C-alpha cells in the first residue's frame, strides 16, 4: 500500500479500537467469520510439513483426487525419523527401523507427486522444521503458520500466529490452505527486569510453565512481553515461544521489533530491497496497541528466575538448580519421584547424570551451541557421562563447524551428530536407556519420551554443558567464563 496510508487490517488507533498483536493477525486472516453455528475459516500463509504427521494427509488428497492448493505456501523437511549418524561408505543411511525409512521415502514421493518443495537429504537447508523455517526466512511477522507439530508455536517469536495441528487438519490445509478455528482467548505474560548471569531463555520459560501450570495456557494464545523478553535475541525468543504448548497454549507470540527485522534481512525467502522496507513498516505496526485488552494477564520479575531444571515427568515439575524436589505425599508427585528414581525432598545438586543431550527445536541453534562450547572449551565430559550434540539444521552444523565448535565438542569427548530431532523424541534410535538419567535441552520430560524408562531433566544449554563436565547436576553459574579481572584497589 502507498506510504503514509493506514491499512485498517493492521493498525488500531484509539483505545476503543485498540487491538492486540493476536487480534490483528486473526482479523487479517479471516476468510469467513465465525458464527454460533460454524467456526471461522482461517487462511494459512505457511504450511510446514514433516514425515511423521503428513502421510495420511496426502492420502486424503489422493483419495479425493485433489491437488495441493498452494504448493508455493507449503514447505517440507525430514527431521523426526532421520538418523543422525552419517551415511556409510556406500552412501547408505542406516535407519532405526524399516518403517522409518519408508516414512521418509513416502514424504519424498508425496512431495514429488504434489509439487511440494522438500528440503530433504542433500539439501543444505534441511533441518528440524522449527529451526529451518525461520532460518531460511520462510517464517515472517504477520503470517499464520501451521504444521502437524505442537512446537510450531516457535515461529511466534517473529510475531506470527503459529500453532500445531493434527494430521486430518494437515489434509485440510493441503487441500484448501484453510483451517476451521474458534477464536482463542488471549493471555499476556509480562516479564519485568533482566535475566541474571547464567540464566537463559530456557530457564525463563521453565519458570513461566511452573508458575502458570502445564494447563495454565489452555484455550489461550500467549503474548510474551516486557523488558526481559525485549532483551532476548531472536533465537532466545524462539526458545520461549517453542515451549508455549508445555503450558497448554497452542500459540505464543512476541511483537516484531528491530531485532526481528535485523534477523530477517537477507534471509533467502525474506523480501528484498524496497519490498523488505515496505514489509518492515507493516510488521512493526503489528505490535499490541496501547490500551488493548487481554483476557488474562500474568506479571513476573526476572530477578525471581534462576537456572532451572525439571525433576519430574511434566515440564511444570521444575525447581531452581539449588532447590530441592518436593516431598512426596500426593499421588502425582509420588509417581513422578518413583519414575525418576528420586527421594522426596532431596537436593538436585549432585544428582548423577548419565547422558547429556544438546539439541532440538528448543535449543539446537547456533547460539545454544556457542554457549555449550564456552563451557566445554578446555574441559572434559565426565568419564561416566555420554554427551550428544545434535545441531538443529544443516545451516547450524555448517556454522558450528566454520567456528570450530565441533572440535571443542569432540575434544571434550562429546559426540557431534548430523541434524535432526534425535533424542528429543527418540524415534530415530537415539535413545536414553531405561533407568538412565539425561539432562536434555529439549522440551518434554514425559515418561518414556526419550526412550522407554528414560529419566529426563530439562535444562538450558549452559546447564546441560556444566552437568556434562561434572557428571552430575551442578549450578551453571559456577562455570561461566571468569569476568575480566578488576584492578585491585591500592
Amino acid at each position, binding site marked *: 500500500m502507498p506510504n503514509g496510508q493506514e491499512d485498517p487490517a493492521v493498525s488500531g488507533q484509539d483505545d476503543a479500537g485498540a487491538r492486540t498483536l493476536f487480534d490483528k493477525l486473526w482479523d487479517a486472516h479471516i476468510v469467513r467469520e465465525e458464527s454460533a453455528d460454524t467456526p471461522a*475459516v482461517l*487462511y494459512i500463509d505457511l504450511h510446514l510439513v514433516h514425515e511423521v504427521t503428513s502421510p*495420511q494427509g496426502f492420502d486424503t488428497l489422493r483419495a479425493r483426487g485433489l491437488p495441493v492448493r498452494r504448493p508455493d505456501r507449503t514447505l517440507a523437511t525430514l527431521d523426526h525419523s532421520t538418523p543422525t549418524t552419517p551415511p556409510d561408505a556406500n552412501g547408505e543411511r542406516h535407519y532405526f527401523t524399516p518403517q522409518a525409512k519408508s516414512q521418509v521415502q513416502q514424504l519424498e514421493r508425496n512431495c514429488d507427486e504434489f509439487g511440494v518443495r522438500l528440503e530433504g537429504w542433500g539439501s543444505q537447508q534441511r533441518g528440524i522444521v522449527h529451526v529451518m523455517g525461520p532460518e531460511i526466512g520462510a517464517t515472517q511477522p504477520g503470517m499464520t503458520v501451521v504444521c502437524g*507439530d505442537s512446537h510450531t508455536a516457535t515461529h511466534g517469536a517473529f510475531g506470527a500466529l503459529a500453532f500445531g495441528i493434527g494430521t486430518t*487438519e494437515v489434509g*485440510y490445509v493441503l487441500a484448501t490452505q484453510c483451517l476451521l478455528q474458534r477464536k482463542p482467548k488471549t493471555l499476556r505474560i509480562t516479564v519485568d527486569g533482566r535475566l541474571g548471569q547464567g540464566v537463559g531463555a530456557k530457564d525463563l520459560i521453565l519458570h513461566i510453565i511452573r508458575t502458570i501450570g502445564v*494447563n495454565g495456557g489452555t484455550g489461550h494464545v500467549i503474548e510474551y512481553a516486557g523488558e526481559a523478553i525485549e532483551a532476548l535475541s531472536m533465537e532466545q525468543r524462539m526458545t520461549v515461544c517453542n515451549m508455549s504448548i508445555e503450558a497448554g497454549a497452542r500459540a505464543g507470540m512476541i511483537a516484531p521489533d528491530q531485532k526481528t527485522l535485523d534477523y530477517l534481512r537477507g534471509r533467502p525467502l525474506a523480501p528484498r530491497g524496497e519490498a523488505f522496507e515496505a514489509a518492515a513498516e507493516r510488521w512493526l505496526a503489528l505490535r499490541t496497541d496501547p490500551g488493548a485488552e487481554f483476557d488474562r494477564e500474568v506479571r513476573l520479575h526476572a530477578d525471581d528466575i534462576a537456572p532451572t531444571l525439571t525433576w519430574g515427568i511434566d515440564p511444570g515439575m521444575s525447581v531452581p538448580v539449588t532447590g530441592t524436589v518436593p516431598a512426596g505425599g500426593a499421588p502425582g508427585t509420588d509417581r513422578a519421584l518413583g519414575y525418576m528414581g528420586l527421594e522426596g525432598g532431596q537436593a538436585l545438586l549432585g544428582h548423577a547424570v548419565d547422558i547429556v543431550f544438546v539439541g532440538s527445536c528448543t535449543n539446537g541453534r547456533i547460539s545454544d551451541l556457542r554457549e555449550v562450547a564456552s563451557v566445554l572449551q578446555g574441559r572434559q565430559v565426565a568419564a561416566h557421562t555420554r554427551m550428544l550434540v545434535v545441531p538443529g539444521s544443516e545451516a547450524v552444523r555448517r556454522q558450528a563447524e566454520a567456528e570450530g565448535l565441533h572440535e571443542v565438542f569432540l575434544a571434550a569427548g562429546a559426540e557431534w551428530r548430523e541434524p535432526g530431532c534425535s533424542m528429543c523424541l527418540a524415534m530415530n534410535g537415539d535413545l536414553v536407556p531405561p533407568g538412565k538419567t539425561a539432562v536434555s535441552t529439549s522440551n518434554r520430560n514425559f515418561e*518414556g519420551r526419550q526412550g*522407554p524408562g528414560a529419566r529426563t531433566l530439562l535444562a538450558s544449554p549452559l546447564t546441560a554443558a556444566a552437568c556434562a563436565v561434572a557428571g552430575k547436576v551442578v549450578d551453571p553459574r559456577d562455570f561461566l567464563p571468569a569476568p575480566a579481572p578488576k584492578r585491585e584497589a591500592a
Partner: protein
Amino acid sequence: MDAFTTLTGQVLVLPEENIDTDQIIPARFLTATSFEGMGDHAFADWRYDREGQAVPGCVLNEPRAAQSPILVAGRNFGCGSSREHAPRALLGFGFRVVISSEIADIFRGNSQNVGLLPVVLPEAVHTRLLAMDGEELTVDLEACEVRTPGGERHAFEIDGFARYCLLNGMDRLDFLLAQDQTITRYEERHERQDSAAAG
C-alpha cells in the same frame, strides 16, 4: 468418520492427571504411514514391560478394558504433542468417549476430527465419575448430557459445529471445500495488497 449420537457402555477409569500423548501412543509407533492398527499400541508402555510382557495389574490389560467405550481420565488429559495418532489409538483400542475435567486443546480438536467424543465436565461431577470404574454411563450427544444408571444427569457443553459434525459423521473437509470461491477471493485481495505494499 462414524457418526456419534448416544452410547451406553462401561466406564474405564484412569485417574492419573496430565496423561500426555506420549503415554497414549509412544513416539516409536509414529513411523507408520497409516493409522491402521494404532489401537494395538495405545498406552503401550503402561500395558507392556520392556520384554513385551503384559504388566500385571494394569487395568488396560483387563478383558473389560476393550469392552469399555467410555474412558474417564484425570485432569488435563491429552496434553503434549499434536499427534493425531493419540485419538486414533484410543478409537482403535475401543474407546468412543473421553471424559475429564479438562482436555488439552489440540487433542480435543483432533478427537472431534476423527470421531472420538471429548466431554469436559465440572470438577465435582468429574470427581464422582472417577469413582465409577466398571459401571455404566450413557453419553447422549443429542441432549448434550451424561446420565448415570442412578438417574443423575450432567449437562456438558460442546462447540455446536463439532457436535453437528459428530452427530452426522460429517467430514469438515467438505465444508472447507465448499468455501472455495470465498477462499479464492481472499487470496486475490491479499495478494493484491501484498504486491501493492511491495511495489
